């Protein structure tokens, strides 16, 4: 399959990435600034999220309503989100609308008003969202797991912590945006029916004269405790497990991710077959690979009624323990087939591709071609996956359970 990728770097450090997707009418653009939740700072968990929300509340000559009305009135689907590493603004639209969208995003990123009189509304919005997550037991279990498993502050919840969000002042927001919403470390990715040269010219005109400060580094601290029970009045108990695996930029991440897919990736995976299909213990059970730039985790999850939660945990741990030395070629073939097929199908969505090429650049400093990515899956074999597993047996698990009663966790989870 022919694939055309583009990249360019502006003098101030902004990286531009592009991919032509012939056959699509749409174009998707995503701006990833390095103002992620990792920079929230002590006692300010949620600052990146509140700042992202504030950036939409007036920018340049536009009010908050102007921004939404012009974007939506032009049929542009917009989104804003904050992850550990980035604060992102994205839009997907019919290709001809891109010239309308770009100046709006330039205002949001370069000229946010961050008005005093919007802070309370924005804060309440963030607090409402936080209250909503309190009612989502699976989300709470996974959030606690990331918080304990990753070294501080990498696992802190980007949506914030209520007490911290209450304490944030407008000066915190302004300082944060000035310090972290900067060109160096920023990625602008575009995919779909694009005219690359025209895109670069427009972005250069809108962002080229943006002076740069160096993005600041974050001190990485310690991990939390290994085992935690979170009391919650629910019928189901939610179980979340994690252990460390190599991050995406390591070559071995493909072996790690394939091993995890054998464990809990598809409906023929070990966990789905054993926990759900054979024993009927739960509705959802899975294992997957989650990566930050320098750390990554294997993450397993299941939710099941309290009376069967202990058995579910025991079976999950047994399956994790059994994995090294037992992977069959047919299993690995299925994993490879699923991964490759998903990669090809991703080409049908401009938004998915814009996100993917930005992610690749952030992790690798380059964008791998689809052909190279597919070749990496082709090169995987039982010996390479087993070799990696033998040297990296799952160990040091972090285990979170959330429900009415705590579960018994083996003292040393060799798993």
């Amino acid at each position: 399959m022919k694939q055309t990728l583009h990249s360019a770097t502006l003098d101030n450090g902004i990286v531009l990435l592009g991919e032509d997707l012939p056959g699509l009418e749409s174009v998707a653009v995503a701006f990833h600034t390095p103002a992620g939740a990792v920079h929230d700072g002590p006692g300010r968990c949620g600052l990146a999220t509140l700042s992202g929300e504030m950036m939409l509340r007036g920018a340049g000559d536009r009010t908050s309503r102007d921004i939404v009305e012009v974007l939506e009135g032009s049929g542009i689907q917009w989104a804003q989100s904050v992850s550990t590493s980035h604060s992102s603004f994205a839009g997907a639209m019919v290709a001809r609308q891109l010239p309308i969208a770009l100046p709006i995003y330039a205002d949001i990123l370069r000229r946010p008003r961050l008005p005093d009189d919007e802070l309370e509304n924005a804060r309440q919005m963030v607090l409402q969202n936080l209250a909503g997550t309190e009612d989502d037991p699976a989300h709470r279990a996974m959030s606690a797991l990331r918080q304990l498993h990753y070294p501080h502050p990498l696992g802190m919840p980007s949506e914030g912590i209520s007490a911290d969000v209450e304490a944030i002042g407008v000066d915190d927001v302004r300082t944060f945006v000035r310090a972290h919403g900067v060109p160096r470390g920023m990625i602008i990715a575009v995919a779909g029916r694009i005219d690359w040269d025209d895109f670069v010219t427009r972005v250069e005109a809108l962002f080229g004269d943006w002076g740069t400060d160096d993005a600041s580094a974050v001190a990485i601290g310690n991990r939390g405790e290994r085992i935690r029970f979170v009391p919650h009045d629910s019928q189901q108990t939610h179980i979340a497990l994690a252990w460390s695996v190599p991050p995406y930029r390591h070559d071995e991440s493909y072996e790690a991710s394939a091993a995890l897919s054998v464990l809990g990736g598809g409906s023929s995976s070990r966990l789905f077959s054993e926990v759900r299909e054979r024993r009927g213990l739960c509705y959802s059970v899975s294992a997957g690979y989650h990566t930050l730039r320098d750390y990554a985790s294997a993450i397993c999850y299941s939710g099941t009624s309290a009376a069967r939660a202990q058995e579910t945990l025991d079976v999950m741990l047994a399956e994790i323990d059994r994995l090294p030395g037992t992977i069959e070629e047919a299993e690995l073939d299925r994993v490879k087939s699923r991964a490759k097929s998903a990669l090809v199908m991703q080409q049908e969505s401009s938004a998915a591709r814009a996100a993917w090429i930005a992610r690749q650049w952030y992790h690798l400093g380059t964008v791998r071609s689809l052909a190279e990515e597919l070749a990496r899956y082709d090169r995987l074999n039982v010996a390479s996956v087993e070799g990696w597993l033998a040297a990296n047996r799952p160990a040091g698990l972090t285990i979170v359970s959330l429900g009415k009663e705590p579960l018994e966790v083996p003292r040393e989870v060799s798993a």
Partner: protein
Amino acid sequence: MKFLHERLPNGLDVIAEVTDTALSTSIGFFVKTGARDETDAEWGVSHFLEHMVFKGTNDLSADEINRRFDWMGASANAFTSEEDTAYHAAVLPEQQIEATALLARMMRPALREDDFDTEKLVILEEIRMYDDQPPFGADDRCRATFFGHHPLARSVLGTVESIERMPVEVMRDYHRRRYSPANIVLCATGAVDFEALVSSAREWCGHWEPLAIPPRRAPLDLRASHAPTLELITRPTSTLEYAVKMSRGPAGDDDDRFAAKLLAAILGDTSGSRLYWAMVDTGRAEQASCHHQDFLDAGMFATQLSCDPEDAEELLGMIDEVYRGAAEQGLDRREFEQNRNKLAGRWVLLGERPRRRLFDVGPEWAHSGDYRSVADDLRTIENLSLEDVHRVLARWPLHGTGSTVLAGPLPLDPSLETASEAQ
């Protein structure tokens, strides 16, 4: 993009929307059956059966089905709603024949009793999972009250009791009656080889025995046409209060359904709408939204609110005022045009994804026997006028009517419950 259709002698419809530039092929069997087609003794069987279809046939085990889908690299799943049960897979085009054959064979499941007993446990877990999640049953309760004696009142999952007491024979009988070929549509979208699709259908489905299917439409008996009702479900440990409100709207065969979707966007889309600016932007509500949903013989506007419990009553009043204001003062041209463009933009983006198109093309044919291209829908949206939206507001007012259910920490207020029972 072209549309193709062929009907097998036993009544099975085979349809495809072919997109030359697509990289994937999506295939789905859409069975015209769902919760509304169940009796009391069958409550939850459509969805339970959807699970059992993955448990294998007389010559395919459940493991074999799962392995085959994964081996094809398929993204395969199924869903059950009030009116449809669908089984679908997205694959690379070279897997079309294999994926179609597997799905087709699954439509004739073994329904073994021991699998049935094990899967029953999974269904019960799924019911518990949803019961632990917002809106804590408010949606099902609201639908029950709103639809009253109409078959759409029935919830899709069933209840713990209805599932526990169901014997396997009920499912076998339901399957035999409802999975008749004339009650099923085989639909494909994307990079489709239609000739191969039809010959797969002949090979695997041609021998299915046709049975007469009773009509599905029911005389409308919506309690919401009377005075408004309010019910409470108390969940003391919930943080927010969740409200679901349903009021009447145009049905699936009504030409006003597109205008209704535009009206819902203006009033209550999740961003940029009247409810959004009044309650979400200001941080009063976590969510305050409205959407239009249509069925074969009924339609509704569903309003959802989540907020601090002590604000729930006030915000429900505010929502009613927003609806009343729209009806009494009308909408302005600017917001009308903004939302029409927004809807059109959304349609174009969804329309270019064949994996997504399957869920428009398949159900549309299953419900109406019609095909509508993305261009047809876009033309309809672009031709909508402000008068169309005002007409919908006049025909189906959203204020001062409807069934509302609150779920959350608010204590049970006996006067409210009595009021609603008296309706």
